[in-house]
């Protein structure tokens, strides 16, 4: 392995972080981390869920103060006392959890904190024009500057926070899992912008759990494990994946999907007929059988999440949905849950988590009926179940009583899934279930989902990662512009074929 010594890299370093330590109550999130980023490079930060990546970049963004350690920018020690100070130093950050204000417009969000104003009056026209330019540069000219951010899809929000980072004229842009909410073509777009930035000398720190992305866009890689740097400046393109994974996890993980069942599937669990969500989904029909995993492939905005939400009753829709032959009341989630459905939503922070509550409370929220009689909770039973799920999902730290907001993103995601991994579910709707989950835990989640299916649960899966849909699902439905345009067993499809179908209006039927 080619190792770049630190002295050598010093000369061209834009950013150096040395011996950063950050202690939270009960957890040492960073335990002496070094990072060294050169101007014009894409520096990837890898590590398992809870390794300390987000904490490190929050230190860099001035959102956390390190206990010890120093930050050098262009060779000079700087103090990043708060986010404004970091921005002034030319560091812009796209956080893992979107931090946009839903009630404000796209333009207002982008220029929040650095409004273009004269005597306190914002210069709306200029802001709108600048916003339009930024969005066009990101390939999203269709988003209007005056739209309220709360109305955008998660991917749309991701684009807005990217535009915000670009609006700062930064020399270092930090991206914490920017691709987690993006579909394939959006990621291509993101990479185009990153290349554009780096060619102008801007450095990018890039965090992702998708290793193939690292290979495509990254220049060098730093690996964190349990709050420590275990490898500095590895070449991103030539280091073997197995090496990176074993550095991250300390073991060898096989990135494989669980085997599909050999026998047939059970009875029809879900039957959807002529489901229509005005303006988004037009008349889709499909079925899911017991034990079957059905994947929905499609672009962001194709209507795949909307189909799921409509089936679940979380969205106004017309059509007929039946679960085990019983009609589902559309628009009533409590009825859906009672008869055996469960939905793990796409956006964990806005749609999934009770941030003020403990991990246990978050996990048991949807199944309180199981731990109670006549509304009276059996807390022993509840806590035991929470503990079991924390173990089963390998949530770290494995303490059900921790406030969930102190968990890393990937671990929060596991808790959102855990909510539905209880007995009695007949149909699970999983929207981007592995969003932000690391490679090791991913393989375990896949196995878990397959095991549920083998026990007779029907699963409907949405994922922006085509390999995940193809690897985990038994049957794939391709969604485009609110319609199902193709349906085939997963084994008969390959990635290119699906991408063609997903994007092109004239697919090459194979």
């Amino acid at each position, binding site marked *: 392995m080619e190792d770049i010594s630190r002295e050598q890299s010093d000369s061209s370093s834009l950013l150096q972080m040395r011996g950063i330590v950050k202690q939270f109550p009960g957890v040492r999130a960073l335990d002496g981390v070094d990072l060294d980023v050169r101007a014009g490079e894409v520096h990837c930060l890898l590590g398992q869920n809870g390794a300390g990546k987000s904490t490190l970049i929050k230190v860099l963004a001035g959102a956390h103060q390190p206990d010890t350690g120093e930050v050098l920018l262009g060779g000079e020690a700087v103090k990043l006392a708060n986010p404004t100070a970091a921005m002034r130093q030319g560091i812009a950050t796209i956080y893992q959890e979107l931090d946009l204000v839903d009630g404000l417009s796209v333009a207002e969000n982008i220029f929040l904190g650095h409004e273009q104003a004269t005597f306190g009056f914002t210069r709306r026209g200029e802001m709108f024009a600048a916003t339009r330019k930024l969005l066009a540069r990101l390939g999203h000219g269709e988003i209007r500057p005056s739209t309220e951010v709360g109305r955008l899809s998660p991917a749309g929000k991701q684009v807005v926070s990217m535009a915000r980072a670009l609006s700062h004229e930064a020399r270092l842009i930090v991206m914490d899992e920017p691709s987690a909410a993006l579909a394939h073509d959006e990621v291509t777009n993101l990479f185009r912008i990153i290349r554009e930035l780096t060619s102008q000398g801007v450095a990018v720190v890039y965090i992702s759990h998708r290793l193939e992305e690292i290979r495509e866009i990254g220049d060098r890689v730093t690996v964190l494990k349990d709050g420590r740097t275990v490898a500095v400046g590895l070449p991103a393109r030539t280091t073997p994946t197995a090496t990176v994974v074993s550095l991250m996890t300390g073991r060898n993980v096989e990135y494989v999907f669980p085997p599909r069942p050999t026998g047939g599937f059970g009875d029809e669990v879900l039957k959807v007929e002529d489901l229509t969500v005005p303006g988004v989904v037009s008349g889709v029909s499909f079925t899911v059988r017991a034990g079957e995993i059905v994947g929905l492939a499609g672009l962001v905005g194709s209507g795949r999440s909307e189909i799921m939400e409509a089936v679940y009753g979380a969205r106004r829709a017309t059509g007929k949905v039946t679960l085990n032959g019983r009609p589902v009341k559309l628009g009533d989630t409590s009825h859906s849950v009672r008869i055996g459905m469960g939905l793990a939503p796409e956006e964990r922070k806005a749609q999934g988590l009770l941030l003020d509550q403990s991990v246990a409370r978050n996990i048991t929220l949807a199944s309180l009926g199981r731990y*109670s009689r006549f509304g009276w909770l059996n807390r022993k039973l509840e806590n035991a179940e929470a503990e079991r799920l924390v173990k089963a999902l390998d949530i770290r730290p494995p303490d059900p009583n921790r406030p969930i907001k102190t968990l890393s993103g990937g671990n929060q995601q596991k808790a959102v899934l855990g909510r539905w991994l209880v007995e009695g579910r007949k149909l699970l709707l999983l929207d981007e279930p592995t969003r932000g989950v690391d490679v090791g835990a991913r393989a375990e989640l896949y196995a878990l989902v397959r095991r549920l299916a083998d026990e007779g649960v029907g699963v409907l899966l949405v994922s922006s990662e085509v390999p995940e849909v193809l690897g985990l699902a038994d049957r794939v439905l391709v969604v485009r512009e609110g319609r199902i345009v193709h349906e085939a067993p997963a084994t008969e499809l390959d990635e290119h074929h699906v991408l063609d179908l997903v994007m092109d209006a004239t697919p090459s039927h194979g």
Partner: protein
Amino acid sequence: MTEVNPQKVSAPEADEQARVEAAAVAPSGPGAGRLALGRITGARHLGLVVALALLAIVGLITAPETFATTSNMVSLLALAATIGVITVGMTFVIIGGGIDLSVGAIMALASVWATTLATQAYGPVVMAICAIVVGTGAGLLNGFLISYGRMVPFIATLAMLVAARGLAQRMSERRTQLVSQDNGALVELSTTRVLGLPLLVYIFAVIVALGWLILNRTTFGRRTYAVGGNPEAARLAGINVRRHTMLLYGLSGLCCGIAAVIIMARTTTGSSTHGDLYELDAIAAVIIGGTLLTGGRGTIIGSILGLLIFTVITNLFILNGLNTSDQLIAKGLIIVVAVLLQRRSLQTAT
């Protein structure tokens, strides 16, 4: 408390209540109970317990003859009982992400409805039931407007505040309605003592205990935190957010009905001027107790401690013969200080 508000429309009312409170006499000691309270509430409420203890010391110093007397303690608790019951309901509503401005007005309406000649003819039990039904009904109406009519809680309950007072005034023709001699049993809630305390203090204690149990030991309580903390997540987890919201306001109304029974017992009257500005005291108590106005967080015990702090301050001002305006200023300061202190402790905790 607000019984001595200078802006009151009918002055005799306030005097009457003060008289009833002053007349309350019984033997009891406050010290031991307070220490035990500190142990139950744990570190989270330590600040509030300390504040309460400090106020008690101030009371002992500034009014050595009157403060620590049993009669004063009993009247203090009786006063706290009325707003206390309302505060329990308010805590649920605020944790659930809402606000109820109509509590005082609903209590007044319930007290008037229960003391009309027609209702009084059926005896004290029916009077009490009437008050509770009226309170719950008004609360459910609030809840219906908010969850199914999609009105903002502030506006819906503001409308209810105005309308319920208006209705109470019409029903009573703005006169104070006395509880008749035949229904004296109702008044016995405040005159009968068990272990030195009037029955209504026990009612208060039971309501607080029930409130605590519902909030901490039932699925209803869990869902209340979820609905207030993240309504979208709650909905997607299969909670019927609308129905739950409606029930929360119904619960608040129910508490107002019970409070109406207590105030009828204490003052022997039903009146459209009862409970003026109680909503502010209840909301302030909840805030001082550490419940976030944004919902999803808070405790019953905190609210009750907040309320006791408020009640003791009022009491100290009255005992020291101070101006009611100064009292309002002091209360305002207490709210600000309490919230600032909580901010700081929140920040250091994370």
